[in-house]
């Protein structure tokens, strides 16, 4: 730590302003009712009515069945609770707290009630009752992404991007800040702007869809993800990176000579880290480091069906191999450990594996037996726990 220069300038200005105010407020007096102490109306914990604050992340898995059954599995206690029954569900997406489900009756947004707020050198961990927060009159497939204040929902079936007030959503209220007509592949909030990726490229827009700044070329965008550095969009020519609402969009091209059959179509990694991973055709995986602005193709001994970057000190990567094994790899592609081919049956049925990564574990649903495997990626892909959660769609929340 360094001791900073005392802030004499602002202090002087402060004193001057306060003195000026004081000379004018000598007679200031109060007609307000007394509000001393901790009244019964004050909520001692948390920003959100009904939420409690905790010492550690309130990690959980939200499982959504094809039949619409929503279950929350608490990863700290292993207790399960039924949250809701939705209409028939085709597909889901999640932002770390809210799970959006594309159903026969529109888009349902489930509030898991578990979330983390980062605050500089520390974080706050919250827990509230899970519930259905909203049902939107729109058609999926759905994508959902949030900042602290704004949640953006992409309704691909109805070609709409719906901008919601996130604080209100957390109270079970739907406040639409905007609705944009767009056939978007992804729409992710960035400050007061929204990054929009569609066939016309990548651009930043306001809540009404008005263009802010210069768009960037992006042929056939396929996926986008928020990293520690900004928002990365996967395009045919490489990645487009948006770091701030008032900063120019940056291009991170693939290395010269990249085989088009290897280019990334999905990005996945631990939330809040600079690097994300993508399957690199049958060669191995890509690591996109948004801090260094580099793509690195890492060959693996086995082709991969899905991959997620952990981006910890040891550069761990978790992958589902096409042979059904879950692999713990490092950033050079070296295999550190593997499970048995636990996903072989699911892969044979044409299902795409998913991997959720947090600071110590990865969660991989075994779609065919009603369990989720908790993988200790730092310990040679050891299966730490086999968790009962029978659901077609699984998202980790509370991170």
């Amino acid at each position, binding site marked *: 730590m360094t*001791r*900073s220069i005392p802030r004499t300038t602002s202090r002087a200005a402060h004193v001057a302003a306060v003195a000026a105010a*004081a000379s004018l407020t000598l007679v200031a007096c109060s007609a307000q009712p007394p509000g*001393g102490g901790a009244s019964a109306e004050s*909520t001692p914990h*948390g920003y959100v009515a009904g939420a409690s604050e905790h010492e550690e992340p309130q990690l959980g898995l939200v499982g959504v069945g094809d039949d619409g059954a929503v279950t929350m599995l608490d990863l700290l206690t292993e207790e399960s609770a039924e949250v809701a029954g939705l209409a028939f569900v085709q597909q889901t997406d999640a932002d770390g707290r809210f799970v959006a489900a594309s159903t026969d009756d529109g888009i349902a947004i489930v509030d898991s009630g578990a979330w983390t707020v980062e605050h*500089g050198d520390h974080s706050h961990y919250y827990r509230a009752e899970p519930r259905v927060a909203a049902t939107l009159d729109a058609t999926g497939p759905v994508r959902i992404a949030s900042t602290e204040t704004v949640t953006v929902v992409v309704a691909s079936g109805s070609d709409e991007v719906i901008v919601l007030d996130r604080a209100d959503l957390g109270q079970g209220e739907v406040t639409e800040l905007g609705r944009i007509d767009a056939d978007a592949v992804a729409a992710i909030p960035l400050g007061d702007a929204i990054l929009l990726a569609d066939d016309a490229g990548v651009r930043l827009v306001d809540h009404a869809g008005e263009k802010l700044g210069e768009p960037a070329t992006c042929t056939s965008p396929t996926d986008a993800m928020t990293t520690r550095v900004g928002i990365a969009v996967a395009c045919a020519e490489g990645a487009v990176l948006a770091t701030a609402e008032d900063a120019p969009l940056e291009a991170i091209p693939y290395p010269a000579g990249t085989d088009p059959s290897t280019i990334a179509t999905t990005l996945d990694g631990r939330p809040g880290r600079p690097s994300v991973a993508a399957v690199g055709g049958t060669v191995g995986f890509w690591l996109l480091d948004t801090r260094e602005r580099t793509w690195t193709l890492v060959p693996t001994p086995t082709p991969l069906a899905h991959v997620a970057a952990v981006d910890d000190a040891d550069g761990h990567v978790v992958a589902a191999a096409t042979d059904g094994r879950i692999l713990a790899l490092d950033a050079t592609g070296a295999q550190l450990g593997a499970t048995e081919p636990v996903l072989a049956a699911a892969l044979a049925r044409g299902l795409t594996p998913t991997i959720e990564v*947090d600071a110590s574990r990865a969660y991989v649903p075994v779609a065919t037996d009603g369990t989720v495997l908790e993988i200790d990626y730092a310990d040679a892909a*050891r299966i730490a726990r086999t968790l009962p959660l029978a659901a077609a769609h699984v998202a980790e929340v509370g991170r």
Partner: protein
Amino acid sequence: MRRTARTLAAIASAALAAGALAACAPASEGPRIVVTTNILGDVVDALVGDQVEVATLMPPNSDPHSFEISAQQAAAMEGADLVVANGLGLEEGLTQHVEAAEAAGVPIVEAGDAVDVLEYATEDASGPDPHWWTDPTQMRSVVDALEAELAEHVDGIDVAGLAEAADAYRADVEALDADLAAAFETLGPERRVLVTNHHVFGYLAERYDFRIVGAVIPGGSTLAAPSASDLDELADAIREAAVPVLFAESSQPDRLIQVLAEEAGLDVRVESLFTESLTEPGGGAATYLELMTANGERIVDALG
């Protein structure tokens, strides 16, 4: 931007004051001084005694970053003679209320303006460290500033009584500082190490020459089925620090001790410290002086 806001507030308050002269309600209808954090509330109470009503917004045993206030309390802020806040970004949940009070012409004194500010820096963030009270010499500077601001803004306050109380409190804080320095000195430099996941002891470390070793405490999902690899980082930190104590907030301290013993062969104790909030009376840290004394005793007891 803050300066502009204050200037505008001053102009606005001039208009308000002119109009409010005739319609002045008795001061007894609301608190004259509203304080955000309970640590500062305790100090302001010590300075003004029974002279005027002081309202502290932050309840005991709560988190200054995230507590909320009622509409009634927010209104009380706008009707006060003076609002005392920590500043430096500590009271995130109160920013809008402090700004509203400021816009209503209420003078705001931020303790952070009187502090020799440390900066924190992590891999992903940096900024001013708002937890200055862990160094009593910073509290002494804040008492000086509070004395001046209270005398200036709280109409009718007995300045001589205030000065007497401030002198007495400064003496208490100086004695606290001397006691802590003497107690920590007995530990020797190699034992003045805090292995901790607390983020509030930067100022204490700076003042008393402690080394802080940041520790990531495994959470419940990790402790459910751990292996040695889960404890590597923490065990390395403990071994490097060469002290058998973890000053940590953990929801499962006993499980953590057990796992560290089983998986890393480490025999440690887990101690908690008071950090950002006073307790209820009898809770061990009902006042600032009690909080600091209790932490000093726990640290010396654990490391000595």
